[in-house]
Protein backbone atom coordinates (compact mmCIF):
# COMPACT_ATOMS: atom_id res chain seq x y z
CA UNK A 1 0.00 0.00 0.00
CA UNK A 2 1.39 3.38 -0.95
CA UNK A 3 1.79 6.27 1.47
CA UNK A 4 -0.84 8.19 -0.47
CA UNK A 5 -3.33 5.33 0.02
CA UNK A 6 -2.91 5.63 3.79
CA UNK A 7 -3.65 9.33 3.58
CA UNK A 8 -6.70 8.71 1.40
CA UNK A 9 -7.97 6.06 3.86
CA UNK A 10 -7.86 8.63 6.64
CA UNK A 11 -9.71 11.18 4.51
CA UNK A 12 -12.31 8.88 3.02
CA UNK A 13 -15.03 9.45 5.64
CA UNK A 14 -14.73 13.21 5.34
CA UNK A 15 -14.71 12.75 1.55
CA UNK A 16 -17.97 10.81 1.64
CA UNK A 17 -19.49 13.38 4.02
CA UNK A 18 -18.50 16.19 1.64
CA UNK A 19 -16.51 17.80 4.44
CA UNK A 20 -13.19 18.15 2.62
CA UNK A 21 -11.96 21.43 1.17
CA UNK A 22 -12.39 21.32 -2.60
CA UNK A 23 -8.73 20.85 -3.39
CA UNK A 24 -8.49 17.84 -1.05
CA UNK A 25 -11.77 16.46 -2.34
CA UNK A 26 -10.36 16.57 -5.89
CA UNK A 27 -7.14 14.83 -4.80
CA UNK A 28 -9.06 12.01 -3.13
CA UNK A 29 -11.54 11.75 -5.99
CA UNK A 30 -8.73 11.54 -8.55
CA UNK A 31 -6.97 8.87 -6.48
CA UNK A 32 -10.14 6.79 -6.12
CA UNK A 33 -10.55 6.73 -9.88
CA UNK A 34 -7.19 5.04 -10.20
CA UNK A 35 -6.83 2.90 -7.06
CA UNK A 36 -8.93 -0.24 -6.73
CA UNK A 37 -7.91 -0.81 -3.09
CA UNK A 38 -9.03 2.66 -2.02
CA UNK A 39 -12.25 2.34 -4.01
CA UNK A 40 -13.00 -0.82 -2.03
CA UNK A 41 -12.24 0.98 1.26
CA UNK A 42 -14.51 3.87 0.21
CA UNK A 43 -17.35 1.50 -0.69
CA UNK A 44 -17.03 -0.34 2.64
CA UNK A 45 -16.93 2.93 4.54
CA UNK A 46 -20.03 4.18 2.73
CA UNK A 47 -21.84 0.98 3.74
CA UNK A 48 -20.88 1.44 7.42
CA UNK A 49 -21.87 5.12 7.36
CA UNK A 50 -25.29 4.17 6.05
CA UNK A 51 -25.68 1.62 8.89
CA UNK A 52 -24.66 4.30 11.37
CA UNK A 53 -27.11 6.78 9.88
CA UNK A 54 -29.94 4.32 10.36
CA UNK A 55 -28.81 3.57 13.93
CA UNK A 56 -28.61 7.28 14.69
CA UNK A 57 -32.12 7.94 13.37
CA UNK A 58 -33.46 5.00 15.41
CA UNK A 59 -31.73 6.35 18.51
CA UNK A 60 -33.10 9.84 17.96
CA UNK A 61 -36.60 8.42 17.52
CA UNK A 62 -36.41 6.16 20.56
CA UNK A 63 -35.26 8.96 22.85
CA UNK A 64 -37.54 11.58 21.26
CA UNK A 65 -34.67 13.77 20.16
CA UNK A 66 -35.00 15.49 16.77
CA UNK A 67 -32.48 14.10 14.28
CA UNK A 68 -31.24 17.60 13.58
CA UNK A 69 -30.38 18.18 17.23
CA UNK A 70 -26.95 18.49 18.73
CA UNK A 71 -25.31 15.07 19.06
CA UNK A 72 -24.21 15.85 22.60
CA UNK A 73 -27.79 16.15 23.78
CA UNK A 74 -28.54 12.76 22.24
CA UNK A 75 -25.52 11.38 24.07
CA UNK A 76 -26.78 12.77 27.33
CA UNK A 77 -30.13 11.11 26.75
CA UNK A 78 -28.44 7.84 25.87
CA UNK A 79 -26.26 7.93 28.95
CA UNK A 80 -29.19 8.78 31.20
CA UNK A 81 -31.45 6.16 29.70
CA UNK A 82 -29.02 3.33 29.13
CA UNK A 83 -26.70 3.63 32.08
CA UNK A 84 -28.78 5.17 34.84
CA UNK A 85 -29.52 2.38 37.30
CA UNK A 86 -32.60 3.23 39.33
CA UNK A 87 -32.94 -0.28 40.75
CA UNK A 88 -32.41 -0.96 44.46
CA UNK A 89 -29.12 -2.57 45.42
CA UNK A 90 -30.46 -6.11 45.55
CA UNK A 91 -31.70 -5.96 41.98
CA UNK A 92 -28.47 -4.50 40.62
CA UNK A 93 -27.04 -8.03 40.63
CA UNK A 94 -28.58 -8.31 37.18
CA UNK A 95 -26.02 -5.79 35.86
CA UNK A 96 -23.40 -8.39 34.77
CA UNK A 97 -26.11 -10.09 32.71
CA UNK A 98 -26.94 -6.71 31.18
CA UNK A 99 -23.28 -6.27 30.27
CA UNK A 100 -23.25 -9.61 28.49
CA UNK A 101 -26.37 -8.46 26.66
CA UNK A 102 -24.65 -5.25 25.63
CA UNK A 103 -21.59 -7.17 24.42
CA UNK A 104 -23.75 -9.50 22.30
CA UNK A 105 -25.61 -6.48 20.95
CA UNK A 106 -22.39 -4.76 19.97
CA UNK A 107 -21.10 -7.91 18.27
CA UNK A 108 -24.34 -8.23 16.30
CA UNK A 109 -24.09 -4.61 15.21
CA UNK A 110 -20.52 -5.07 14.08
CA UNK A 111 -21.35 -8.19 12.10
CA UNK A 112 -24.22 -6.31 10.46
CA UNK A 113 -21.94 -3.38 9.70
CA UNK A 114 -19.27 -5.61 8.17
CA UNK A 115 -16.70 -5.02 10.89
CA UNK A 116 -16.42 -8.60 12.16
CA UNK A 117 -12.94 -10.03 11.82
CA UNK A 118 -11.63 -6.74 10.49
CA UNK A 119 -10.94 -4.46 13.42
CA UNK A 120 -12.30 -5.80 16.65
CA UNK A 121 -10.50 -3.19 18.74
CA UNK A 122 -13.29 -0.88 17.68
CA UNK A 123 -15.76 -2.83 19.84
CA UNK A 124 -13.74 -2.55 23.01
CA UNK A 125 -12.99 1.09 22.40
CA UNK A 126 -16.68 1.85 21.88
CA UNK A 127 -17.61 0.00 25.07
CA UNK A 128 -14.99 1.95 27.03
CA UNK A 129 -16.23 5.24 25.58
CA UNK A 130 -19.79 4.59 26.69
CA UNK A 131 -18.73 3.31 30.11
CA UNK A 132 -19.58 -0.38 29.85
CA UNK A 133 -15.92 -1.48 30.06
CA UNK A 134 -13.24 0.18 32.18
CA UNK A 135 -10.50 1.92 30.17
CA UNK A 136 -6.80 1.09 30.75
CA UNK A 137 -5.66 2.87 33.96
CA UNK A 138 -2.88 4.68 32.10
CA UNK A 139 -5.47 6.36 29.88
CA UNK A 140 -7.37 7.63 32.92
CA UNK A 141 -4.16 8.77 34.63
CA UNK A 142 -2.79 10.42 31.48
CA UNK A 143 -6.04 11.77 30.05
CA UNK A 144 -4.56 15.25 29.73
CA UNK A 145 -1.64 13.88 27.73
CA UNK A 146 -3.95 12.12 25.28
CA UNK A 147 -6.34 15.07 25.11
CA UNK A 148 -3.48 17.19 23.81
CA UNK A 149 -1.82 14.37 21.89
CA UNK A 150 -2.11 15.90 18.39
CA UNK A 151 -0.24 19.03 19.44
CA UNK A 152 2.29 17.08 21.52
CA UNK A 153 3.03 14.83 18.56
CA UNK A 154 3.98 17.78 16.40
CA UNK A 155 5.26 20.12 19.10
CA UNK A 156 8.77 20.33 17.64
CA UNK A 157 7.53 21.59 14.29
CA UNK A 158 4.77 23.78 15.75
CA UNK A 159 7.20 25.58 18.05
CA UNK A 160 9.50 26.40 15.12
CA UNK A 161 6.67 27.04 12.68
CA UNK A 162 7.69 30.59 11.77
CA UNK A 163 11.14 29.63 10.56
CA UNK A 164 10.17 26.26 9.10
CA UNK A 165 7.16 27.48 7.14
CA UNK A 166 9.11 30.08 5.14
CA UNK A 167 8.37 29.39 1.50
CA UNK A 168 5.07 27.62 2.16
CA UNK A 169 1.81 29.11 0.81
CA UNK A 170 0.66 32.18 2.79
CA UNK A 171 -2.67 30.51 3.64
CA UNK A 172 -0.79 27.81 5.53
CA UNK A 173 0.54 30.17 8.17
CA UNK A 174 -1.78 30.71 11.16
CA UNK A 175 -0.57 34.24 11.81
CA UNK A 176 -2.02 35.24 8.42
CA UNK A 177 -5.68 34.92 9.21
CA UNK A 178 -5.93 31.14 9.30
CA UNK A 179 -6.60 30.78 13.00
Amino acid sequence: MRVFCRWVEREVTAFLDQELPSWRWRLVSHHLERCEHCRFVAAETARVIEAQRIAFCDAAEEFSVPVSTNLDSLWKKLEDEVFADPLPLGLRLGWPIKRIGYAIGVALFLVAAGYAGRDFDVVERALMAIGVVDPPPEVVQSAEFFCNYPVIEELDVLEHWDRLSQGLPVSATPENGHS
Partner: protein
Amino acid sequence: MGIVRSIIATGVVFTVSAGGLARLCPAQSWRELSPRERYEVLRRYERYKQEPEQRRERLEENYQRWQQLPPEEKEKLRRRLESWQELPPDKREELRRRFQDRQGQP
Protein backbone atom coordinates in the same frame (compact mmCIF):
# COMPACT_ATOMS: atom_id res chain seq x y z
CA MET B 1 -34.29 -4.07 24.90
CA GLY B 2 -30.80 -3.74 26.39
CA ILE B 3 -29.30 -5.27 23.29
CA VAL B 4 -31.17 -2.88 21.03
CA ARG B 5 -29.99 0.08 23.08
CA SER B 6 -26.45 -1.22 23.01
CA ILE B 7 -26.56 -1.46 19.23
CA ILE B 8 -27.90 2.07 19.02
CA ALA B 9 -25.32 3.44 21.43
CA THR B 10 -22.49 1.78 19.55
CA GLY B 11 -23.84 3.06 16.26
CA VAL B 12 -23.77 6.56 17.63
CA VAL B 13 -20.20 6.08 18.83
CA PHE B 14 -19.15 5.22 15.31
CA THR B 15 -21.22 8.02 13.85
CA VAL B 16 -19.74 10.75 15.99
CA SER B 17 -16.20 9.41 15.88
CA ALA B 18 -15.93 8.96 12.15
CA GLY B 19 -13.77 11.23 10.02
CA GLY B 20 -12.77 14.81 10.47
CA LEU B 21 -9.60 16.32 11.82
CA ALA B 22 -8.08 15.33 15.12
CA ARG B 23 -9.36 17.80 17.67
CA LEU B 24 -8.04 18.67 21.10
CA CYS B 25 -10.39 17.91 23.98
CA PRO B 26 -11.22 20.93 26.11
CA ALA B 27 -11.68 18.76 29.22
CA GLN B 28 -8.55 17.36 30.80
CA SER B 29 -9.71 14.39 32.87
CA TRP B 30 -11.35 11.14 31.78
CA ARG B 31 -14.49 11.77 33.79
CA GLU B 32 -15.05 15.16 32.18
CA LEU B 33 -14.80 13.80 28.65
CA SER B 34 -17.85 13.10 26.54
CA PRO B 35 -18.10 9.59 25.03
CA ARG B 36 -17.04 11.04 21.69
CA GLU B 37 -13.90 12.53 23.25
CA ARG B 38 -13.17 9.34 25.19
CA TYR B 39 -13.34 7.37 21.96
CA GLU B 40 -10.82 9.73 20.37
CA VAL B 41 -8.54 9.58 23.44
CA LEU B 42 -8.55 5.78 23.25
CA ARG B 43 -7.60 5.88 19.58
CA ARG B 44 -4.68 8.16 20.43
CA TYR B 45 -3.61 5.83 23.25
CA GLU B 46 -3.52 2.93 20.82
CA ARG B 47 -1.46 5.00 18.39
CA TYR B 48 0.91 5.92 21.22
CA LYS B 49 1.36 2.26 22.22
CA GLN B 50 2.44 1.42 18.68
CA GLU B 51 5.17 4.06 18.66
CA PRO B 52 8.78 2.88 19.12
CA GLU B 53 10.33 3.42 22.55
CA GLN B 54 12.51 6.30 21.37
CA ARG B 55 9.54 8.16 19.91
CA ARG B 56 7.54 7.63 23.10
CA GLU B 57 10.34 9.15 25.15
CA ARG B 58 10.36 12.11 22.77
CA LEU B 59 6.60 12.51 23.15
CA GLU B 60 6.91 12.50 26.92
CA GLU B 61 9.58 15.18 26.73
CA ASN B 62 7.29 17.19 24.49
CA TYR B 63 4.47 16.77 26.98
CA GLN B 64 6.61 18.06 29.84
CA ARG B 65 7.55 21.06 27.72
CA TRP B 66 3.89 21.57 26.81
CA GLN B 67 2.84 21.55 30.48
CA GLN B 68 5.28 24.34 31.26
CA LEU B 69 4.04 26.63 28.52
CA PRO B 70 1.90 29.65 29.44
CA PRO B 71 -1.76 29.48 28.33
CA GLU B 72 -1.34 32.06 25.55
CA GLU B 73 1.53 30.07 24.05
CA LYS B 74 -0.58 26.90 24.20
CA GLU B 75 -3.35 28.72 22.39
CA LYS B 76 -0.95 29.87 19.69
CA LEU B 77 0.28 26.30 19.20
CA ARG B 78 -3.30 25.04 18.99
CA ARG B 79 -3.97 27.52 16.19
CA ARG B 80 -0.82 26.36 14.44
CA LEU B 81 -1.99 22.77 14.80
CA GLU B 82 -5.18 23.62 12.92
CA SER B 83 -3.11 25.01 10.07
CA TRP B 84 -0.80 22.00 10.26
CA GLN B 85 -3.75 19.65 9.89
CA GLU B 86 -4.86 21.52 6.80
CA LEU B 87 -1.54 20.96 5.08
CA PRO B 88 -1.25 18.17 2.52
CA PRO B 89 1.00 15.25 3.58
CA ASP B 90 3.93 16.26 1.37
CA LYS B 91 4.05 19.75 2.92
CA ARG B 92 3.95 18.26 6.43
CA GLU B 93 6.77 15.94 5.51
CA GLU B 94 8.73 18.86 4.13
CA LEU B 95 8.34 20.79 7.41
CA ARG B 96 9.42 17.77 9.43
CA ARG B 97 12.43 17.35 7.18
CA ARG B 98 13.34 21.01 7.57
CA PHE B 99 13.13 20.64 11.35
CA GLN B 100 15.35 17.57 11.32
CA ASP B 101 17.85 19.29 9.05
CA ARG B 102 18.03 22.19 11.47
CA GLN B 103 18.43 19.86 14.43
CA GLY B 104 21.06 17.77 12.63
CA GLN B 105 19.03 14.64 13.29
CA PRO B 106 19.14 11.64 10.96
